[in-house]
Structures are given as structure tokens and as C-alpha cells.
């Protein structure tokens, strides 16, 4: 029972310290976001709702109905029914994706050899019926037009689905630690 302990016990010093911190937080800027009023932009490359890539030259889907996305899908939520058109080109007659089964791992995007499926940054999709979450080919193509048209869609596969492996040649542009360099410039200035 030292004097220090006695002071601490009687005057509630540790509680007052904590209350001071609470007060500091009370007058500082809040970190919470009023979500529905202030919508949050997803980061680039977010794994949201799917889209089928529309080929700008033909106006049709890029998909060649090889079925690799359905094969790698851990949730088994992609169903493809293929057909041949008059030129003998294989295409997906029906391309269906059950969003309620999907686990958003993006393995389908990696498996696709032609880059025909993408994941958009759209994440707000609540609805009243289950049918709204059963995506057909038309819905998925409309997603591409709506969320990924223009530059965003062109850069998508270059930026996020490029595992640097045996073709790795150029090092420039690769992210490296530059904290010390930044400190040096700050000191010089």
C-alpha cells in the first residue's frame, strides 16, 4: 500500500486519463460514414457483381463457351449451354450465373482464357425476389455496358489480372518501398 497506489485508488487517475482520451475523440472529426446518404466508392479492382465483356468490334460477347469458368468455380454457380452459329463458331446460347451461390472469389476471371468475364465495382444489389439475382447473358452484358464501359473496361485486365510469371521482363513501375527516398527529399527541402 504505497502512497502512489493510494493516490491512484482514491483519485481514479487511470479513469480520468481514459476520459480525457474519450473527450479528445468527442471533439475530433468523426470517422463514421452516414452510409446510405454518403455512398462509398469501391476501390479499383473491387470484386463486385459480374459482367460479361462485350467485344467492341463485333458488339457481341467475347465468351467462346469453353466452360472453364464453370469448371473452376468453387461454388458451382455458373451454367453454360453452348451452341454453334452459322459460321461454325461456338458461342454461349445461355450463360447463367446464380449470384446467391457465388462467393466472389474471382477465380472465373482468372480461368477465362479470352478475358470474357469481369467483376464490376458495383456492390449495392438488394432486391425483393430471388429471380433478380439469377443473371442471364443479357443481364451480364448490360452490366458491362453500365459499369465497365470505356477506359475502365480496357484497363481492367491489364491492371488486376496479370500474374507476373515467366513472361516477367520489365521491372519498371513495380511498387517498391520509397519511404526513405521520401524522407530524404523532405530533409533536403
Amino acid at each position, binding site marked *: 500500500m504505497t502512497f502512489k497506489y493510494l493516490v491512484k*485508488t482514491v483519485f481514479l487517475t*487511470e*479513469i480520468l*486519463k*481514459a476520459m480525457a*482520451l*474519450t473527450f479528445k*475523440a468527442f471533439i475530433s472529426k468523426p*470517422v463514421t460514414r452516414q452510409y446510405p446518404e454518403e455512398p462509398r466508392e*469501391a*476501390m479499383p*479492382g*473491387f*470484386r463486385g457483381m459480374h459482367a460479361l465483356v462485350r467485344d467492341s468490334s463485333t458488339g457481341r460477347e467475347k465468351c467462346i463457351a*469453353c466452360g*472453364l469458368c464453370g*469448371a*473452376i*468455380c*468453387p461454388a458451382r454457380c455458373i451454367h453454360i449451354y453452348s451452341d454453334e452459329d452459322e459460321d461454325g463458331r461456338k458461342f454461349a446460347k445461355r450463360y447463367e450465373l446464380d449470384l446467391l451461390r457465388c*462467393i*466472389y*472469389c*474471382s*477465380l472465373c476471371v*482468372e*480461368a477465362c*482464357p*479470352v*478475358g470474357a468475364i469481369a*467483376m464490376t465495382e458495383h456492390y449495392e444489389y438488394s432486391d425483393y425476389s430471388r429471380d433478380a439475382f439469377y443473371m442471364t447473358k443479357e443481364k451480364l452484358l448490360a452490366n458491362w455496358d453500365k459499369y465497365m464501359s470505356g477506359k475502365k473496361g480496357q484497363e481492367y*485486365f491489364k491492371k*488486376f*489480372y*496479370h*500474374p*507476373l*510469371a*515467366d*513472361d*516477367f521482363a520489365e*521491372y519498371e513501375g*513495380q*511498387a*517498391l*518501398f*520509397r*519511404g*526513405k527516398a521520401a524522407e530524404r527529399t523532405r530533409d533536403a527541402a
Partner: protein
Amino acid sequence: MEQVDKETSAREELTLSLGPQHPATHGVLKLVLELEGETVAKCTPHVGYLHRGVEKLGENRTYLSALPLTDRLDYVASMSYNVGYVVAVERLLGVEPPERAKFIRTMVSEMARISSHLLWLATHALDIGAMTVFLYAFREREWINDLFEMLCGARLTVSYPRIGGVRNDVSQEFLDSLWKFTEEFPGRLLEYETLIDQNRIWLKRTIGIGVVSAEDAANLGLTGPMIRGSGVPYDLRKFAPYDAYDQVEFDVPTGTNGDTYDRYRVRMEEFRQSNGIVRQCIEKLPPGPVMAPDAPKFTLPPKEKVMEDMEALIHHFVLVTKGPITAPEGETYSAIEAPKGELGFFFISDGSGTPYRMRIRTPSYVHALALPYLTEGSFVADVIAVIGTADLVLGEVDR
């Protein structure tokens, strides 16, 4: 009726069913407590409410597509579980990831450790009665989730590592903001400690609660902060280094008494060590590829090559549809240090693209089964403190 009442009042015993929907059990854990007055005479954990059959599902998926299942084991530190899975598969297949991928994986698994410990601190303090810490800890956890989103597009179920490397390279923006996080995080830790470290209610609720001696901890199979709190410096990052842990410097904090407070101190110290490891990884991050260049039979080829190179196309189709069919036969057990303890993957391979058997040794399962030892003889209120200090995540208890 009268007779029954007499009997129960004579024995003064009460069977209390805690859970499975009790918020303080962190998920769907059910504890059947036999009480004598307010003292717990017997505690029986009932697990299995969240069973999804991940091990069996893994036997029906290829090595590549079973990876997202491991996200769902411990959903608060899914990155560590992904890393544990790919390290085990790499050891089975004999794939060596490049240096840059090793450093990135070390970095992200330490971020997952910080994130997991933040959730532990928030909910543990909330259960005991300190609500303020919850709000502070979730502020930083949100930051880490944002960083994960920047890295791989998902906040919780990341699926970021891949067999032979990682999914994509880190961006400069990510590295810079992670560096900023590591600079600010020690200050935030001091804030948490201001709130509870010396708080008299916190001390009364944690000191001397759930005591486990070093010998008993080892006999019960406890790992991670649960055994380190008892003074055993058992850490797989030191004893069996994987990824880049042999190239970074860190200490293994230990406690002395093995009570709830010591385990709290161990985890608070681990925050600082993890923060240091993340900083070292950023500083030492070498340039180079992030996917093993010399394992075309186990890693997906670059997308540009698939439609140009015949061999790459064949590898791609076979890998996606059948998995790595040239996997060597045999069995392997590989363990990593997950935030909650030793996470082990045991594979039996029959040479096909899917594992013949995938067994997962999860730390929380062992810790849940140690609850009777930790709670019997203590008060009901202390059961909540012990569940909190064991850091149970029911997703990995039930698998």
C-alpha cells in the same frame, strides 16, 4: 411439482444452457454449464452448429479451386488461412515461390494478425464491459480492410495468395498507405492501453481468471497466444519458418502467470511485433516476379500467353478443369502460425488434381475443447472472459 422443487433447492444445482445464440459466445457455440450457486461445476462445450464440411468439400475440388474455402474457416483473418493452405500445397507439390511473393505474403499475413487481434480486443473488452475500446479498435480494423480491398478487391474473404505466389502485384499506392498505417498504428495502440491497461474493472476481471500453467497448456494442445501467455515461447514463425519469416526480425512475447491479463498483454505486444514485421517487409520488398516462373504445371500461365502458346493453353485447360494432375503421391503436414495458434493442413495425395484427404488442424477447435479446464470452478461471469481470451472463431471450430 413440489417434490421436484424440494430436490433442486436441496442440491442448489442449476443447468444453464449458454448459447448457441448468446452474443458473448462469438458465434454459435453452446456451453452447457452445471452450476452450484454461481460456481461452474461442469462445463460441456457443444460444437457443430456451423459445420459446413470444408474438409470434405476440399476433396471434391482441385487444389486451385479449394482455396476460397479456406477463407471461410476464420473469416476475421482469412489471409492467414489462405497462406497456410498455399504453403501446405506448395510443400506437397514442391513449388518454390519467388522472393517478392514470399515477402508480400509475410506482409499480408501480419496485417491479418493485426486485424484479427483488433477484433479480439474489441469483442473481448466489450464482453467484459469496456465498450469504448470496441469503437477505437474497429476504426483501425476498417483501415486494414480498406487496404485489403485496395490490394485484391475484397475486404474479408480475400483469396489473395495463389499456389506458387500471389494473385497480383502490390501497387505503389497500397505500399504507401500501408507504410502510413504502420507509422500511425503504435500511437493508436497507446490509446487502447490508456483505456483499459490500468483500468481497475479490467484488472479485476482479467487478473487470475482462466489460469493455465505451462505444462497444462502444452498437454491441452493450446497454441498461439494461449500458450505464450503461460510463458512458453512456442511460435511456428520462429521454429519452422515459412515464407520470409527467417529474413525478418521479431520477438516472441510471453507472459508469466498464464491468466487472462497475461494473454491480453501478449497479444498487445504481438501488435507491435507484427507492425514491425510489416515495416521490415515493406523496406526489404525486392523487385521481381510474384508467381513462380518455373512451375508451369502448377501455376496458371499469363493470360496473353494462353491464346498464343500451345503448351500454355494445354497447361491452362488441364489446370483449370482437372487441377495439377502431376502432383506427387504421398502425404504432408504443414503448419503455420495463424493469429489464433497453430494452423495445420494435412494432405494425402493420390497423384490426381484433387487431394485424397484434406484435414485441417484449427487452433480454435482445440481451444474450445480446453474451455472445461479453464472454466470449471470459476464464476459464470468469468466464463465470458475465458471465451473472449480463447479468441474463438466458430467458423474454424466447426469447419
